C-alpha cells in the first residue's frame, strides 16, 4: 500500500508537462479514450476495467444469496469444486463473497478518489484564482502537506475518523489530495502562462471563470490519466486498511477484509487468502494498464528499420592523396544511414577521402552536411542505430568495422583520439579532469594510476592549460570554456595518437582562445607527426590550419583541394560561395552580407543530379539530371562539378 501511493505520486511527474494546445470543453476525454484503445496495454486495461465494472454491478445481484447463505454443516471447508475458495466460519461460500465484495471495494475506491481528487483539484486551482498573497499561502500549504508521506496522512486520518468504511474513504482521499493539488497547481500554472489565457484575461474574464472555462478543460487529459491510476491505488490502499482492521468492518466486507480472514487459515486453505489477493492485484493492474496506455498513446510512432539501404552511388575512388600504401585514413564510398519514422535517412551519401600521415585535413561544410558523422564513422563511433557502409574503409591499415572490441581497443584506443565540440558536456561531470585523462593511459598503456596522473598533468601542460596540477584535481564545471577545450585536446594527447579527429574544436570559444587552440593543434601535428582531421563549418578556421581541405555538401564531397588552391581559386561554386561569406565577415563590412540562398537537400531526399543545383548561379541543364563525378583539375585538386570555375574568387 505504501508503495502504491508513493508510486502514484511519482508517476504523475512525467505527465505534468503534457498540456496540449488550447481546446474546448470535453474534447480531452474523447481524444484520450481513442488513444488508449490503440495501444495494446491500454486496450487490455480497458477490458479489465470493464470486467471489474460489470462484476461490481452484477456481483451482488447474482451471488448475494450464496454469499449470505450460512451452512452449519459446511464450516471452514477447504477448496472443493462446490466451494473453489472454501467456506468461512459460518459456512458461507468465499468465492461468492469475493464476487459480491467487488461492489463495495469499487465503490470505496472510486468514492475516495472522487473526494480526494475534488479536494485536491480545488486546492490546486486556488492559486490561479486568488490574489498573489493568498496564492502564495496556498502553494506553501500544498508544499507542506506533500512533505509528509501519504501513508502517514492516511494512518493519521484513519485514527482520527476511527476507521470504518467512511473512515477509510476519507483517509485515502486525504492522503491523495495533496498530490492532486500539486498536479493541478503545476498544470494550471503552465496553462495560465499561455497566450490565449493572457488574452482572455485582458478581455476582462474573471479569474474563477477563467479557471473553470479555459484552464480546467485544458488540463483534463493529464488529470484523467492520473485519476485512472489513482483508482487502482485506491483499490489496493483501502484493501490494505481493511486488511489491517482499520477499514471496512463486519458485517460489511471488502477484498481486504476477506484477505484478512483468509490469512488466519493459510495453513489449511491458502486459496481463501489467495483469492482476494488476486482480486486486489487484478484491480491494481487494470487501472495501471489503462493509465499507462493513455501515456503510451501520446508517445512516438515506431521508426522504420534501415533494411532498405540507399544504393551505393557510382563515383570514382580517390586518386589523390599522395602515397596510397601508407595512408592513415582511406574511405571510399562511405555512407552512414539511420532509421527514422519517415524512412531511412542517409546523412552521409558516399564520401571519398584520404588522409596522409602527418597531414592536417579539413572537412568543411554547412551544418547537416554529414561532416561530423564522417569523422565518427572513421573511428567506428557512429551512434546506434546508425549503419556505416563503404566499399573500402581503412584506418591505420585496418577496417574499423571488422574489429573485435579487443582489437579496436588495441588499435583505435592507442592510436586514434577524438576531440569533440561542446567541451562543457564532453567531459564526465562527476569525475575529476585529471582522472578522466589518466584512465586512457591506465587502460591502453598499462601505466600505474600514479604515473598516469603525472602524465595527465604533463599533457595538460602541453595543451597550455594554466596551473595544470590544480586543474587536474578539479571537476569539469570548475574550468572555463577555453580551458575545458584544452583539457579535451590534452585527453587526445595522452596516448601516442597517429590520428586525431577534432570536431569543431573551436566553435564554442571566443576568437582569441580559438586562435590559441588552432595553434595548439598545429603544434601537436608538427611535434608528434600525428595526422589530424579538423571538422569545421568555418572555412576560415580550416584555411588557417590545414594542409588540405575536403568540402562536403549534402553528404557528398564536392571538392578536395590543397589549402593554397583554396586561397587562390577553388573550382566548385559552393566552395567559392562559402569563401565569399567568410571573406566578407573578416573584410569589407559595408557590403550586404552575402549568404547562400536556399537550403541543401535533406538527408531523406533523393536528387538525380548535382545536390547544389537549386542554389547554384552557374547551373546548366545537365546539373539537374546527371550527378557530376569527381574529376582531377590539378595536382591534388579534384572537383565534382559540370561547370567548374577558374580564377580568383
Amino acid at each position, binding site marked *: *500500500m*505504501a*508503495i*502504491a501511493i*508513493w*508510486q502514484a505520486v*511519482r508517476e504523475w511527474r512525467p505527465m505534468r508537462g503534457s498540456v496540449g494546445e488550447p481546446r474546448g470543453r470535453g474534447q480531452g476525454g474523447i481524444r484520450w479514450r481513442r488513444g488508449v484503445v490503440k495501444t495494446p*496495454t491500454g486496450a487490455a486495461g480497458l477490458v479489465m476495467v470493464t470486467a471489474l465494472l460489470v462484476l461490481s454491478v452484477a456481483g451482488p445481484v447474482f451471488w448475494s444469496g450464496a454469499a449470505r447463505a450460512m451452512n452449519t454443516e459446511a464450516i471452514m471447508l477447504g477448496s472443493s469444486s462446490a466451494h473453489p475458495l472454501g467456506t468461512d466460519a459460518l459456512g458461507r461460500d468465499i468465492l461468492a463473497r469475493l464476487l459480491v465484495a467487488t461492489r463495495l471495494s469499487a465503490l470505496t475506491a472510486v468514492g475516495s478518489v472522487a473526494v480526494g481528487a475534488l479536494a485536491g483539484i480545488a486546492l490546486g486551482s486556488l492559486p490561479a484564482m486568488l490574489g498573489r498573497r493568498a496564492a502564495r499561502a496556498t502553494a506553501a500549504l500544498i508544499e507542506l502537506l506533500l*512533505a*509528509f*508521506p501519504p*501513508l*502517514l496522512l492516511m*494512518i*493519521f486520518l*484513519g*485514527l*482520527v475518523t*476511527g*476507521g470504518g468504511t467512511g473512515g477509510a474513504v476519507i483517509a485515502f482521499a486525504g492522503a491523495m489530495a495533496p498530490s492532486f493539488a500539486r498536479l493541478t497547481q503545476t498544470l494550471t500554472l503552465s496553462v495560465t502562462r499561455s497566450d490565449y489565457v493572457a488574452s482572455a484575461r485582458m478581455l476582462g474574464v474573471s479569474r474563477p471563470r477563467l479557471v473553470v472555462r479555459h484552464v480546467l478543460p485544458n488540463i483534463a487529459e493529464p488529470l484523467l490519466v492520473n485519476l485512472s491510476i489513482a483508482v487502482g491505488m485506491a483499490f*489496493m490502499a483501502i484493501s*490494505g486498511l481493511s*486488511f*489491517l*482492521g*482499520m477499514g471496512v468492518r463486519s458485517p460489511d466486507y471488502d477484498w481486504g477484509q476477506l*484477505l484478512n480472514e*483468509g*490469512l488466519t487459515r*493459510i495453513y489449511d486453505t*491458502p486459496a481463501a*487468502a*489467495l483469492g482476494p*489477493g488476486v482480486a486486489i*492485484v487484478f484491480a*491494481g*493492474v487494470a487501472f*495501471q494498464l489503462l493509465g499507462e496506455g493513455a501515456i503510451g498513446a501520446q508517445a512516438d510512432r515506431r521508426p522504420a528499420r534501415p533494411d532498405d539501404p540507399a544504393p551505393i552511388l557510382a563515383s570514382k575512388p580517390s586518386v589523390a592523396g599522395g602515397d596510397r600504401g601508407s595512408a592513415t585514413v582511406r574511405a571510399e564510398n562511405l555512407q552512414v544511414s539511420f532509421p527514422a519514422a519517415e524512412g531511412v535517412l542517409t546523412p552521409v551519401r558516399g564520401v571519398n577521402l584520404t588522409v596522409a600521415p602527418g597531414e592536417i585535413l579539413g572537412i568543411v561544410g554547412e551544418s547537416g552536411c554529414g561532416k561530423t558523422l564522417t569523422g565518427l564513422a572513421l*573511428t567506428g*563511433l557512429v*551512434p*546506434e*542505430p546508425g549503419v556505416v557502409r563503404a566499399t573500402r574503409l581503412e584506418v591505420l591499415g585496418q577496417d574499423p568495422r571488422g574489429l573485435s*572490441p579487443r582489437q*579496436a*581497443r588495441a588499435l583505435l*584506443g592507442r592510436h586514434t583520439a577524438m576531440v*569533440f565540440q561542446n567541451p562543457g*558536456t*564532453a*567531459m*564526465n*561531470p*562527476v*569525475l575529476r579532469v585529471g582522472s578522466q585523462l589518466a*584512465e*586512457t593511459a591506465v*587502460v591502453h598503456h598499462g601505466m600505474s594510476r600514479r604515473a598516469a596522473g603525472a602524465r595527465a598533468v604533463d599533457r595538460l601542460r602541453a595543451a597550455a592549460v594554466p596551473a595544470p596540477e590544480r586543474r587536474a584535481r578539479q*571537476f569539469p*564545471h570548475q574550468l572555463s570554456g577555453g580551458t575545458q577545450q584544452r583539457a579535451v585536446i590534452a585527453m587526445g594527447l595522452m596516448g601516442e595518437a597517429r590520428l586525431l579527429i577534432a570536431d569543431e574544436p573551436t566553435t564554442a570559444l571566443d576568437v582569441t582562445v580559438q586562435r590559441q587552440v588552432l595553434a595548439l593543434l598545429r603544434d601537436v601535428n608538427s611535434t608528434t607527426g600525428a595526422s589530424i582531421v579538423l571538422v569545421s563549418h568555418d572555412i576560415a578556421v580550416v584555411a588557417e590550419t590545414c594542409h588540405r581541405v575536403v568540402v562536403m555538401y549534402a553528404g557528398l564531397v564536392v571538392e578536395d583541394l590543397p589549402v593554397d588552391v583554396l586561397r587562390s581559386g577553388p573550382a566548385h561554386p559552393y566552395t567559392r560561395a562559402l569563401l565569399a561569406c567568410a571573406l566578407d565577415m573578416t573584410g569589407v563590412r559595408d557590403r550586404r552580407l552575402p549568404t547562400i540562398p536556399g537550403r541543401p537537400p535533406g538527408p531523406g531526399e533523393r536528387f538525380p543530379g548535382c545536390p547544389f543545383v537549386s542554389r547554384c548561379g552557374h547551373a546548366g541543364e545537365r546539373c539537374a539530371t546527371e550527378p557530376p563525378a569527381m574529376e582531377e583539375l590539378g595536382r591534388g585538386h579534384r572537383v565534382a562539378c559540370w561547370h567548374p570555375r577558374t580564377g580568383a574568387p
Partner: protein
Amino acid sequence: MFAARRFARLVVLLSILVTASFGLMHLVPGDPVRAALGPEATAAQVAQRTSELGLDRPLPDQFLDYLSGLPAGDLGTSLVSGQRVGDIVVAGLPNTLTLAGLAFLVVVAVAVPVGLLAAIHTRGDRHRRGALAFTSGTGLLAVVPEFVLAAGLVATFAVGLRLVPVAGAGGPDSYVLPVLSLAAAPAAMLARIVRAEALRELGQDYVRTARAKRLPARLLYVRHVLPNALTSALTICGMLIPGLVMGTVLVEKVFAWPGLGSAITESVLQKDYPVAQAMVLLLGALVLTSNLVVDLVLARLDPRPALTEA
C-alpha cells in the same frame, strides 16, 4: 548553507508532526478513555484513568507536558496495558528497523545492476521485445501490494514448500519472506527508473567521449555512466524509504512480526491512543529524518552546484 536550510525545514516539519500527534487524541470524536476501556467500565473508572493520564487538565498544560516528556523519551502510558509507551518502542523498533533496512539493501542491490544491465541491452532501440518484457514485468511487480505478495509468498514457500517459517522473527530464514515481500515492488520500480536514467545518460556527450577512448565496457558503464544515472535514481531511493518504513506496518501484520507496525495496528484496533500517537510521531520522524539524510548525501555525491541550489 544548503544543509542549514534543509535542517530548518526538518525542524518545521517535525514541530508540525509533534503538534499533530499530540492533537490526535483530542481530535478523536468521543471520549478516548471511554473508548479504550470499553462499555463495561464504570464512570468512576473512566474518570480515574482520565485524571491518571492528565487528560482532565487544561490543553496547553497537557501540550507542555507532552513536549517536556519527549526529549527524555517519555511518550506516555498505554491505556490498555498500562505499559510505558517508551518500552513498547524499545521492544519493537529494532525489529522494524532491521526489516526496513534489509529490504532497502535488497532493493538497491538488486535494482541498480538489473536496471543498468537492462539499459545496456536495450540501448538505441535494440531488443525491443526485451525492453517491453522488462517494462511490463517490472510494471506488474510494482503494483502488487506488499501484503498481497506476502500472503502469496507465505502460501507458496512457507505453507506449500515448507522452506521457511510462516511467521515470527527468529533465525535468518524468518527474514526471507518479510524482506522479499517488502522489497519486491520498490525494487521493480527502482530498476525501471535506473534503466530510464541510464538510457538518458548513454545519450550524453561524455559517454561518446568515453567511447572514443575505447574504455572496456566495465569501465564505461560502472565508472562513467553509473554515477551519473545514480544521482537522479538516488532521489527516488530517498522516496523509497518512507514506503519501506510504512510498508512494514502491513508486512508485520502478515508475519506477526514483533515490531512497531504490529504495535500501531493493535493500538488502533484497541483504541489505545497514547500508543498510536507515539507511533505516528515515531514513524513520521523516521521518514522525515531519513529524507534529510538522503538529501544531504545526494548534495555531497554530486559535485555540480545545480543540484544543491534546487
